[in-house]
């Protein structure tokens, strides 16, 4: 049985630089370097299994969780370990691998995956387990947890996001195999969200899963929003969330026994000459992706691995971060001198406020930069967050509960249902410029530390 979700709250930002062209004909970019970033797998305490100079194949375990040694993260490519980078207090920052161009790949045994236990081991050893998140806490799924339901978002509604329909529609076989494997891991339902009325290609119905046709502005495509509007997480329950690409990868692995680490990346943003799709490998270095694609300018620019709302700011020597298959380049804005900006009537200003003429230019594509455009203040305006968070949650009160570290109130107000990304638009519209995603992330972290 399929479900239709029609969400009203939210906001689609009109930003210049959407990728054109078809993902199917994307140019292939060979990465010079590939990196795995432990920060992309919150909840795991990772230790390296390799050292500099080691040769790895695609699928070789590179990182391992201290507390659950069966959970590991595998190399997306065959090559040599170039660096094990550590930061302050020897914190593991990333493992950099230089591809050697060979096709050496670990083959995983796909036979005898007939029960829950074998399916878990299969996913954990291949590294795909670490790409599944759980709620509460928005961390990598706890190997001891059994999910009530699994929510897959096979759509991305974020600003300038790649067209998931076009990318995933051709992988129907993989998606179905992935869903079949996940079905072994839950007694509940697998919900797969897809965009309603997609023009180009449509993700086909998948047997054994409930398809959710979603209509509405961002953040309608967030897995947490889908879950919240179908069957919210209650205290004591766990759900798993993953994106459509990960589901297809799980399917590929189940069908072939090898990892599919190719990924279609949308190179977007106002500072990109010709925003388009490219085909590369997960963890690819940013240099290889953006080289020759940026507009030559004198002003500073910000390269974001991901979208403008939740992505990571990376330098030229950074890497594509999980789970993003998008790179956005916008002006940094720290070199702009603007006289009395608060009084501006310039149509170039992007805002939800009707006091800006730009608000009425419905077709205009804006070129926002990374400035806060105001000072940090206490929460002043009311009701702003609620208008962009399509969940049955008292957002302002949840934020206040988090700020006051009141665990009882956090639980009562539904912190288990949320992830920082669900508050990204609220952070964008906040006139007090409050760092809501950071607050939510810290709240979840605090709660986990206190309760575990």
């Amino acid at each position: 049985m399929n479900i239709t979700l029609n969400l009203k709250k939210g906001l689609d930002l009109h930003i210049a630089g959407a990728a054109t062209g078809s993902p199917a004909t994307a140019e292939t970019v060979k990465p010079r370097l590939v990196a795995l970033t432990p920060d992309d797998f919150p909840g795991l305490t990772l230790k390296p299994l390799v050292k500099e100079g080691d040769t790895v194949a695609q699928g070789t375990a590179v990182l391992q969780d201290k507390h659950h040694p069966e959970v590991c993260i595998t190399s997306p490519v065959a090559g040599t370990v170039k660096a094990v980078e550590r930061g302050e207090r020897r914190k593991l920052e990333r493992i950099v691998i230089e591809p050697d161009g060979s096709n050496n790949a670990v083959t995983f045994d796909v036979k005898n995956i007939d029960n829950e236990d074998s399916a878990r081991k299969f996913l954990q050893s291949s590294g795909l387990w670490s790409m599944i998140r759980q709620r509460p806490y928005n961390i990598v799924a706890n190997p001891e947890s059994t999910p009530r339901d699994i929510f897959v978002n096979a759509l991305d509604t974020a600003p300038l996001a790649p067209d998931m329909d076009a990318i995933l529609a051709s992988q129907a076989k993989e998606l179905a195999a992935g869903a079949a494997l996940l079905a072994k891991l839950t007694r509940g339902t697998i919900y797969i969200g897809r965009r309603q009325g997609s023009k180009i290609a449509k993700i086909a119905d998948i047997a054994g899963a409930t398809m959710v046709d979603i209509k509405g502005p961002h953040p309608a495509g967030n897995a947490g929003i889908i879950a919240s509007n179908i069957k919210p997480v209650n205290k004591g329950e766990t759900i798993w969330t993953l994106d459509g690409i990960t589901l297809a990868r799980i399917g590929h692995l189940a069908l072939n026994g090898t990892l599919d680490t190719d990924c279609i990346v949308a190179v977007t943003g106002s500072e990109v000459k010709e925003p388009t799709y490219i085909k590369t490998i997960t963890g690819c270095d940013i240099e290889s992706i953006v080289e020759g694609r940026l507009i030559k300018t004198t002003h500073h620019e910000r390269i974001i691995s991901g979208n403008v709302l939740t992505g990571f700011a990376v330098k030229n020597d950074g890497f594509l971060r999980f789970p993003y298959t998008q790179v956005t380049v916008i002006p940094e804005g720290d070199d702009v001198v603007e006289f009395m900006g608060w009084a501006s009537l310039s149509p170039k200003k992007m805002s939800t406020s009707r006091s800006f003429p730009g608000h009425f230019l419905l077709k205009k594509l804006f070129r926002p930069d990374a400035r806060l455009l105001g000072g940090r203040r206490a929460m002043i305006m009311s009701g702003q967050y609620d208008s962009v968070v399509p969940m049955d949650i008292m957002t302002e009160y949840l934020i206040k509960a988090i700020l006051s570290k009141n665990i009882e109130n956090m639980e009562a107000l539904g912190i288990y249902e949320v992830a920082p990304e669900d508050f990204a638009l609220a952070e964008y519209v906040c006139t007090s410029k409050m760092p809501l995603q950071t607050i939510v992330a810290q709240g979840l972290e605090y709660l986990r530390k206190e309760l575990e």
Partner: protein
Amino acid sequence: MRPYFEDGGRLHAFRSVYDGFDTFLFTPETTSHSGTHIHDAMDSKRTMIIVVLALVPCLLFGMYNTGYQHWLAAGQGVGPFWTMLLYGFLAVLPKLVVAYVVGLGIEFVVAQWRGEEIQEGFLVSGILIPLICPIETPLWMIAVATAFSVIFVKEVFGGTGYNIFNVALVTRAFLFFAYPASMSGDKPFIARDSILGIGGDVPDTFTGATPLGQVATMAGDAMHPITGVTGAEVSQWDMFLGLIPGSFGETSTLCILIGAAILLFTGIASWRIILSVFAGGAFMAWIANMTATPTYPVSFLSVGDQLCLGGFAFAAVFMATDPVTAARTTAGKYIYGFLLGVIAIIIRTYNNGYPEGAMLAVLLMNALAPLIDYCVVQCNINRRARRARLNS
């Protein structure tokens, strides 16, 4: 310039002041380091300035009306337009300056002391204070009341965004209770002296009661006509335009509606609150009018008069909608507004001691707003708890 104001610089004691002016003149270059990379161009500076802009029609009309009432009271008929406006400007200017200097002065000092940026909240409070006071309020009283209000109503709670009561209204309430003789009755609402040779002198014996003041002291079992300062009857149209004695900026319902239009168009004031305040006020005024009794002469006023007169409309548009002190939840806003309107009319009608109830009603509802929100939030919490029980 900046190094002088940084820690260790010669002028570091003025760092927050420098920052205040710097961010006022130039948009800060601060970029986001965590979370979203882009932000809406709307900030609290612009929000506050738009509220100030929305108050400008009331301010201008207040200037004109002050001159107009003065000319009438001085027995000189209606004076030249620009001269009357200039008179009103000169009458209100010292009050504006005093309110801003005292209030912003305290804000600057506190910001420097806390090591924070200067917050913009007082930009609005500073213009509201002269607008809601009678024109004859002595300057020193405004200074004392403003200082009290900014320190004890705002700063001790943590500054803009943390206060429970509306700062400008507490200033007014402080004046009302500390110096009742100067704030009510029939004297303070008309400017009495000539300023810089403009205007005439109003005789000491002259009285100019506000319409509500007149109604409150009426005797008999029917409505007497409301009279202006010259003794002539005031038409409903004059009441709507605001050509009546009253606190400086709150007499003109027309200008208040212009302000409301600005606030609603820009989405800064909550339409839910404004609508429900008027609904509550109209509902209570209708009940009062249906059960009119000579014991409470204000009950003879029609619904339209009740909403036009006194500070009701001003409170509904500019005071009740203060997002910090109003209810914050959507459902809470309706309840808050409706009760506010009802209580304003109840105080005004059934308490002959206070000819105006809007101020007290807003302050009372400010105190109750957290309770209303608590109930609304509790509904959400209960819903979630029930859901969890059903599932387990």
